[in-house]
């Protein structure tokens, strides 16, 4: 009896060990597949290969692992002239940083204020506002992109020959102005905050503003961080809107992603710039990935708040 039981237990545990082993194997293989392209980009960034005649090989090569390593790509990236702009890459980084910070502040503020109204206040046009924002959200974003360009151009905030730098303001407006319409995720989060909390504060004579400031905001830290993270990283990732709004011939005021994309696919694409492109990617990715990793918890919270309740 007891030996039989032991046998069963041992066969069960063997089964479990086998299935665990299989899980490990699958996960490790998947992990490698998921990391290969990123590892390759990092390796390419540090690649420093020369042809026999001494010319630098910057294009995509057939070898996965570089034969020589070096920092030449990074050095070139920071000093080279792209699209007639000397020191273009640091300039693009700076542009993007400025745009991202302003966009982050404005967008987060707008989203939170709209989400709070939609979730915790009662007023006449509430449902109408939600329906309009849903309908507008169903139009492809690219459709309005060109109209926004015309609009900004007509008030001189882009394509302005005497003030090309105004296009940065135009881009910030284009990024952040519509942000309030994307309140759904934050609203989902606010909805979970118990109404009893708000009601009891109201009975104590708190104004709606006080409730927002003293009760909602402190509880909303995860969603504030999520929104800030999303709006801050947005400008680093977008390469189409920025190019259309700022203009293809205004290279000095491009964001970094437009610049990097244009190295490979712009009006003067240069396949030999691939390793420099890779170096640029590494530099852009480091701060963003670090931010994501540090704020992972909040990101997950935001993603689930938005996904589950819609």
């Amino acid at each position, binding site marked *: 009896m007891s030996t039989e039981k032991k046998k069963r237990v041992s066969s069960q545990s063997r089964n479990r060990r086998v299935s665990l082993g299989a899980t490990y194997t699958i996960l490790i293989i998947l992990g490698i597949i998921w990391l290969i392209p990123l590892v390759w980009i990092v390796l390419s960034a540090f690649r420093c290969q020369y042809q026999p005649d001494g010319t630098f090989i910057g294009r995509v*090569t057939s070898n996965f692992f570089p034969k020589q390593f070096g920092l030449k790509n990074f050095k070139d990236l920071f000093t080279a002239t792209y699209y007639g702009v000397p020191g273009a890459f640091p300039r693009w980084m700076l542009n993007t940083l400025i745009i991202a910070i302003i966009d982050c502040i404005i967008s987060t503020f707008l989203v939170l204020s709209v989400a709070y109204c939609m979730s915790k206040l009662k007023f006449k046009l509430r449902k109408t506002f939600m329906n309009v924002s849903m309908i507008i959200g169903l139009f492809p974003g690219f459709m309005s992109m060109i109209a926004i360009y015309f609009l900004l151009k007509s008030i001189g905030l882009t394509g302005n020959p005497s003030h090309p730098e105004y296009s940065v303001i135009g881009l910030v407006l284009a990024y952040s102005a519509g942000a309030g319409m994307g309140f759904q995720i934050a609203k989902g989060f606010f909805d979970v905050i118990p109404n009893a909390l708000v009601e009891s504060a109201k009975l104590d004579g708190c104004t709606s503003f006080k409730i927002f400031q003293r009760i909602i905001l402190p509880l909303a830290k995860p969603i504030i961080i999520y929104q800030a993270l999303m709006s801050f990283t947005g400008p680093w*990732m977008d390469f189409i809107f920025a190019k259309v709004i700022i203009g293809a011939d205004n290279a000095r005021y491009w964001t970094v992603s437009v610049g990097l994309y244009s190295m490979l696919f712009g009006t003067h694409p240069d396949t030999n710039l691939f390793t420099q492109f890779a170096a640029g990617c590494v530099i852009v990715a480091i701060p963003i990935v670090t931010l994501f990793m540090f704020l992972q918890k909040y990101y997950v919270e935001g993603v689930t708040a938005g996904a589950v309740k819609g």
Partner: protein
Amino acid sequence: MGAKANKTPKNQKTGLTFVERISKSFSDFGKRFADGSPGTKLSHFIFGAGNFYHKQYIKGLIFLLLQIAILALMIFCPSINGTPYGWKALRNLSLTHVSEGGDFDPFTGQFTSGSDCKLMVLFGFVTIAMIFIYILLWNKNIQSSYKADMDRKVGKKPTTFKEDLKELLDGKFHVMMLTPTCIAATIFTILPTIFMIALAFTTYNSQDMNDLGTNLFHWNGLQNFRAVFTGEGSLGIEIKNRFLPVLGWTFIWAIFATLTCYFGGIILALLINKKGLKGKKVFRTVFIFTMAVPQFISLLAVRNLLGEYGPFNSLLMQLGWIAKPIGFLGLHPSDSEKLAKVMVILINMWVGIPYTMLMTSGILMNIPADLYEAGRVDGASTVKMFRKITLPYVIFVTTPYLISSFIGNINSFNTIFLLTGGGPTYTGYQAGGTDLLVTWLYKVTIDQGSYNTGAVIGIFTFIITATITLITYRRSKAYNEEDTFQ
């Protein structure tokens, strides 16, 4: 059932139908004009008059200044780049042939040159928005004066400006919080969308206009929509021959992209959360890491990795499996379209699975453990428990996400644009083998300057996404019981 039962009392709560509401607003209007003080009566013509009558000077002044500003804009028609606002903009908008120009001289019957049709249409809509704002202000100013009348009647003092400001922080807090978004979204989201919809009914096509040597266009009704069937117009052949294939592929893509990422993500989450597995955090971090990298970096990396001279092709050649490089991503017109389609769906799994994994991990941990326990006692296999317990639970919780991710995939620009650029291309056509409606829209507007055709494609995309949303989302619990969560 539950949703339906919930609906009836809600409709009763809102009470009035649209017609009733309009008739009520008219009767309100008549009542206010008849019962109101002289100030209120005057408010119907001069904004803020009623507020001045009740000594609410600051409020009255704000209303008055706004009225003067809008009226001045309407009458004097300031112009930008030779294109006027105001009544002239409305007239420009109403001309069937906007084509003739911007500023119109009634004496000569001629248009001044150097005008820009797109600005005329744009400013026309801005002016219409202004008129709406004017009507809104008009209503508000009468209401405000009438309210002061009523306060007086019951022996209260009309509110002071300070009290009004205080009210903005409490009872009217939503006004303060929503105004910035309303203004910004009207200018930068709603107006541009309406403008682009309007362009679908014009001849605004840079190529045609270049050929004709003009920067002017005119309204042409439903001609651009008819081109889908008839093939008329400069991009007519393109839209006639390519519309259905692109539409079909958009659907196939959206279905496959949604389902593969969804189930792939759930399976990955199950694998990572397996009992007894060590290093959960490491595995999770690996997948989150790939998500954190901007898409234009990771997707362009994949594109080059699979490229003609890239490491993957050369590996396959070294292994002797292929003789010459394969065009995985349809970057050359001669490449296989089917292969490119399969590849984008596969690579999209690489992009989307970590996201679903992250989202479902939390949900999986919330499944009551005794459900599995019961299943195990009944001798259910792992696969069976997945099918009977895990999947129904996860699907139930994530239906809204499934819908929104399907719509997101219909509008998924980055994956296609960065990987294949829509290729393999067909000579003579803009839309390639893997182009979705959105990427086609992009090519047609930004590359070709065919704004009218682009707008038609955009409207079709909207119709599709709106239909899906209407059918599924409005029926869902999340929408109908939205305010029960409060």
